[in-house]
């Protein structure tokens, strides 16, 4: 009897200790985004080969928000309307804590890439939405959902730099995107953000800069969904 009880105790203890994939009671869930290029870490100012030329990224910033945890396609937890600015130059910003999510059982996450239209028409905001963050168009109201600036060796006119500032909330040029990913149950969900799924779809040598709402911004935004995948899938 004693051995049986001890066995059960150790079984349970073992389960707890080896459950790297469990959402421990007491630990809030966090999302850790890992920017990559073709499965390698994406580093600012590093050179990467692309379509017989090379490029480097000087700025990569994007907003995520409306995070939801799902179980069997149903929402089991949602964020209270926070928006998070992720900036490749600020490593700490790449981890998004989900407050009060401890103990939630989920099998998928969902988030929006960008700022919703209501927030876009609600005036000046603070925190990650402050206009000093460089993600708000001053000449025309609206947030930039994803900003990617860089240089491409083969790009000549008007200069070797490229600028993709994807934003716009008015139909039919709305650019906000929704991403849903199946994931393992963990208190730290790692999400790969492989920019090759966006960059390799762009002709960096010839594509003109996109810095205002319109068809180009909308079409490029649609491609951004593909950059995200769960690092570990069930």
């Amino acid at each position: 009897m004693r051995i049986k009880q001890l066995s059960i105790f150790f079984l349970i203890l073992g389960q707890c200790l080896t459950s790297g994939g469990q959402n421990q009671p007491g630990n809030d869930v966090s999302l850790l985004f890992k920017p990559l290029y073709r499965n390698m870490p994406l580093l600012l100012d590093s050179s990467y080969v692309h379509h017989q030329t090379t490029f480097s990224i000087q700025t990569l910033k994007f907003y995520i928000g409306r995070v939801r945890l799902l179980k069997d396609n149903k929402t089991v937890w949602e964020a209270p309307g926070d928006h998070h600015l992720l900036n490749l130059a600020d490593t700490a910003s790449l981890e998004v804590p989900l407050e009060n999510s401890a103990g939630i059982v989920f099998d998928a996450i969902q988030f929006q890439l960008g700022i919703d239209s209501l927030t876009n028409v609600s005036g000046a905001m603070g925190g990650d939405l402050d206009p000093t963050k460089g993600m708000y168009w001053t000449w025309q109201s609206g947030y930039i959902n994803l900003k990617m600036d860089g240089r491409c060796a083969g790009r000549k006119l008007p200069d070797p730099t490229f600028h993709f500032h994807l934003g716009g909330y008015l139909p039919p040029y709305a650019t906000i995107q929704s991403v849903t990913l199946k994931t393992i149950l963990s208190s730290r969900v790692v999400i790969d953000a492989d920019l090759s799924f966006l960059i390799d779809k762009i002709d960096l040598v010839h594509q003109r800069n996109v810095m205002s709402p319109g068809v180009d911004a909308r079409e490029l935004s649609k491609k951004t969904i593909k950059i995200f995948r769960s690092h570990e899938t069930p």
Partner: protein
Amino acid sequence: MKRHRCIILTGASMALFLCAFDNVHEDNHVIPEYPANWPVPAYNFDRNPLTREGIALGRKLFYDPILSRDSSISCSNCHLSYTAFTHVDHALSHGIRDSIGTRNSATLINLAWNRYFMWDGAVNHLDVQALAPIEHPAEMGEKIGRVVEKLQNDRPYPQLFYKAFRDSIITGEHLMKALAQFQLTLISANSKYDKVMNQESGWAFTAQESSGYALFKTHCNSCHTEPLFTNGTFANNGLPADSLLQDIGRMKITLNPKDLLKFKIPTLRNIEFSFPYMHDGRFRSLSEVLHHYTDGIVFSPTRSPELKDGIMLSHRDKIDLIAFLLTLSDRDFLFNEDLAFPRKK
């Protein structure tokens, strides 16, 4: 009989009592006065409640050239209080180093009722309007982040921001909201026209002004709708397109061909003081404006249907109509020292 809504300093007596306590500002909200028969403002005051401290801070910022890159241009350079908060005598405004812009400076009047800002409605909320001139290379030529840095290091701004927002760390959000608070107090509702409409004792239109008012209601009111003298929408009023500026108006923002050459219908309040006229300041006088409506309208697919047949006005009609438009001047607003440059008393 005045039909004004009273100024409500919520908990006014409480506020006076609490004035001695700098850190107690609850219920210190200011609600601007406006006539009871006006529509409800579009601005959401819940997100940025007006306070005396916020308004005073916004006013100080409005008149401070620190907002510009070389500290030469303040908001008042293009928005002078005595001239209806616009930049008179200039078809196109000029900014730092005498750079010339591409549009005529708009009046800042009754902004709480606006849903769109700028001639093409590029800005959708008053709180974020100031970002445009602050960062425009031909206006103030600065970056909003730099403005915040400068203010943080410029006494007494941190203290003033603390008084207004309970935070001495200055943010872009609070800077914008302070400017908005001051601008929301720019209410013009006490012109001769208003006194006549309110049947104030001793005020009546002259025969000429009455005739002009009747003409106004027939020919102008559908777009320049009372009492704000704008219906807040965009219209193409038949102006020939400027071949140099090539300003396509609202279409630049919506990318919709149906918005080609449409511009925001401006208020006519204080029109006597806000020359020159139109989005590019092409008309120097009200006579020229009326001449356009009777003889100068050009066809375009997006022209307002109301102007399909032009406007018929005799020479006498034009004089009467201008006489009426002059009754929209509100000298209490234009020369209100509480709105002008904050001088130490």
